């Protein structure tokens, strides 16, 4: 109790509170600009944290990431441009709801689920940090391989498009990840001697291109005047739009929060993968799975609760073992090291106040998110009342700056534009974009872990089932692939009998 009080004392002082509030607005701003990710918001904070004490520095990062992940839903809903990759899983649901005039219902659900999911994630973090980290630490390349294969299978399963088209889209994404230096032999693939290509296709410009540029092109091809305004109903009160959703889908919220916390704790799997998996699980167990993809709020509940929860979950391995759970905590570890604090079990013994302060900040950040988020939803109206002829050029500018700023590379702007055209052509021909994006996100992880596992197993494929957790995950993945076949065979036999 004494520790909890002194931890609270570290946070509830004017300076730190001011930083927290400023970080909340900063996070909302960056998150709602398409292409600027929560990771980028965190990276932009790093130079500022140099002059801060450890607690306000970490608090600023936690609050920024929490608000940015939510704010990513706003342009997703209004413009079909996910502000951060974490919103990509359910961007179609939100956008279709906006066309039905249900902006408040969509964003209200996303805000309230972000808050609740975030609080569940914080609780998961505070209660199970040591135990969960120890579990995730038993994961080797074999377990990660199967886990990412499961993730890829989700990409095809969650798609509403015909299976072959979804599969082709996934393969395109996987192909794009093979560009660049391979990790094993350092062999340049598909680089054509271009130094810019040795780093591979950066996920952020690819994402902006596929989602934003293709959308801008579609707008340009269609009716420029008035189309962004079309179907936007007048502002409605937020709270009445929230309660029915929360009551109806309370199971989804809690499940999404738990999934997010768990997935976040796995190193390498961040908010975006958490949202995808929660979305897929939600659809699988939904009473009305056919509604997914048609502007169904349940999908938003699944994804929004999971991605915010995973932000907290990622701190579990980061704090207990110094292994980042996602790209944001990778930066957090760097900031802590600069402050002379090495994340690890010793920090739980020697810097208990700091650990508790981080837990408190997570709860505080999510409570604060409700107010700042509601304000952001209100203000976002102004974004869509701007004539599209004015709005889309500005968005294009933001996209270009965003793609450039990731790596300060003009080449990334070309990548964004090229993939924008590809994304446009795909969508026009009913190829879903989402599997391609997930292929891009997971392709590197799958390959890296497959090759590492093959080297470790010296080519023995049975070794992939050698370790207990890997065996369970592997059997699970094979079941996902064969389940439709087995079900079909079973039905055939029943019909015959």
């Amino acid at each position: 109790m004494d520790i909890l009080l002194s931890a609270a004392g570290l946070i509830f002082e004017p300076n730190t509170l001011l930083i927290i509030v400023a970080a909340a607005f900063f996070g909302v701003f960056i998150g709602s600009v398409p292409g600027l990710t929560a990771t980028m918001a965190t990276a932009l904070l790093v130079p500022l944290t140099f002059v801060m004490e450890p607690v306000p520095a970490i608090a600023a990062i936690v609050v920024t990431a929490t608000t940015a992940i939510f704010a990513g839903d706003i342009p997703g809903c209004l413009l079909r441009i996910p502000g951060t990759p974490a919103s990509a899983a359910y961007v179609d649901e939100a956008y279709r709801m906006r066309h039905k005039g249900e902006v408040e219902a969509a964003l209200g659900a996303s805000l309230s689920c972000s808050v609740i999911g975030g609080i569940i994630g914080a609780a998961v973090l505070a209660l199970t940090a040591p135990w969960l980290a120890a579990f995730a630490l038993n994961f080797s390349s074999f377990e990660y391989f199967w886990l990412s294969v499961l993730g890829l299978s989700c990409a095809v399963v969650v798609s509403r498009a015909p299976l072959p088209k979804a599969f082709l889209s996934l393969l395109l994404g996987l192909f794009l990840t093979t560009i660049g230096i391979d990790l094993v032999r350092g062999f340049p693939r598909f680089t054509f001697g271009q130094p810019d290509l040795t780093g591979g296709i950066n996920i952020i410009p690819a994402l902006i291109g596929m989602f934003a540029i293709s959308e801008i092109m579609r707008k340009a091809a269609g009716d420029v005047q008035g189309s962004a305004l079309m179907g936007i109903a007048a502002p409605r009160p937020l709270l009445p739009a929230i309660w029915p959703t929360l009551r109806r889908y309370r199971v989804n919220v809690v499940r999404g929060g738990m999934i997010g916390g768990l997935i976040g704790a796995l190193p390498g799997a961040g908010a975006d993968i958490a949202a995808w998996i929660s979305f897929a699980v939600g659809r699988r167990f939904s009473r009305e799975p056919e509604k997914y993809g048609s502007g169904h709020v349940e999908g938003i509940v699944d994804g929004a609760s999971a991605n915010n929860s995973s932000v907290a979950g990622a701190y579990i391995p980061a704090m207990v073992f110094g292994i980042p759970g996602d790209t944001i905590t990778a930066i957090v570890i760097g900031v802590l090291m600069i402050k002379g604090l090495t994340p690890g079990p010793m920090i739980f013994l020697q810097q208990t106040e700091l650990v508790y302060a981080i837990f408190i900040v997570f709860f505080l950040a999510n409570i604060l998110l409700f107010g700042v988020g509601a304000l952001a939803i209100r203000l976002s109206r102004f974004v869509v009342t701007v004539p599209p002829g004015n709005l889309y050029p500005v968005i294009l500018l933001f996209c270009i700056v965003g793609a450039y700023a990731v790596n300060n590379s003009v080449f990334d702007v070309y990548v964004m534009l090229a993939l924008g055209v590809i994304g446009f052509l795909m969508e026009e021909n009913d190829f879903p974009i989402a599997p391609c994006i997930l292929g891009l996100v997971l392709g590197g992880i799958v390959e890296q872990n497959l090759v590492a596992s093959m080297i470790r197993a010296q080519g023995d494929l049975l070794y992939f089932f050698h370790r207990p957790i890997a065996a369970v995950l592997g059997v699970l993945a094979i079941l996902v692939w064969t389940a439709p076949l087995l079900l079909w065979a079973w039905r055939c036999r029943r019909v015959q009998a």
Partner: protein
Amino acid sequence: MHSFWKAGLAALAGVALFAPAAEADWPERPVTLIVPWAAGGGTDAIARKVANLLEEELATTVNVVNRTGGAGIVGHTAMVTAEPDGYTLGLATAEIATYEGMRTAEISYRDLTPIALINLDAAAFHVAADSPWEDLQSALDAIRDQPGEFFVSGGPVGAGYHLALAGLLQSQGIDPMALPIVPSDGAAPGLAELAAGNVHVVYSSVPEARAMRDAGRVETLAVLSEERLEAFPDVPTVEDAIGEPFAGGSWRGIVAPAGLPDDVRERLIEAMTEIYNSDDYREFMGTAGFGLLWAAGDDFGDFMAEQHERNQGVIQALGLVD
């Protein structure tokens, strides 16, 4: 926020044409410091500290720009291809001495103007806490007796630490191929593999393994340096462990593109000398656990040439190129 707009402005500035020329009154405008690794990592942390101190020394803004990807090739290429006008500097890392040998990129120390070597992090020999090996000698004996039985991880193939460890094996008459590498994307995933019992050795620096050491998951049998590390006096050097010295690891140094005017170079060396000897820099490096090593100008150039030669030999022995 700030650097975001700066980046935007830099994009616009890149469009405008201006003839770069080195003048005696350098620096007249902000200097860019390229970091070939991601924000938040060790190289990034050192670069930002140096940038801070350089701003005071040069009385101009120094912007840190992360150009990541391709095992550092993208960032190092950006250093090489920039105008040698003193407005683009880079924090080169040990990998610059490996690309040519690995045949992954046609850039090397010859394309750079060496300013100052400012850090060396020694590789180390980490094993899992439940490993049967009590000391370095028994580990080396086991690797020699059962080639191909044990695995090492901790980074991409051919990175600085990997070549250092391979060099240690070679110096003991062990074929480096006897300890196959399971490549990983840096120290942290490698240590996770070690803790999960999937590999037997990790060659990262000691500070990178600090948390796992404190957790009692990892033991360090030796550090590949001449002397024991100040922050880790309990870790024996290779000489302490097996009686023969061996040092190797990953280094970082400030460079400029080849062809930097002499007056700018002198000015930079002078500024870096001040920074390296400042209490501020030493305290920062000490608390973070980064090692110190100094060489300026041509001495740094000789150092890179020597590393380059040594890596060529190790890369051949590892069979990394045909």
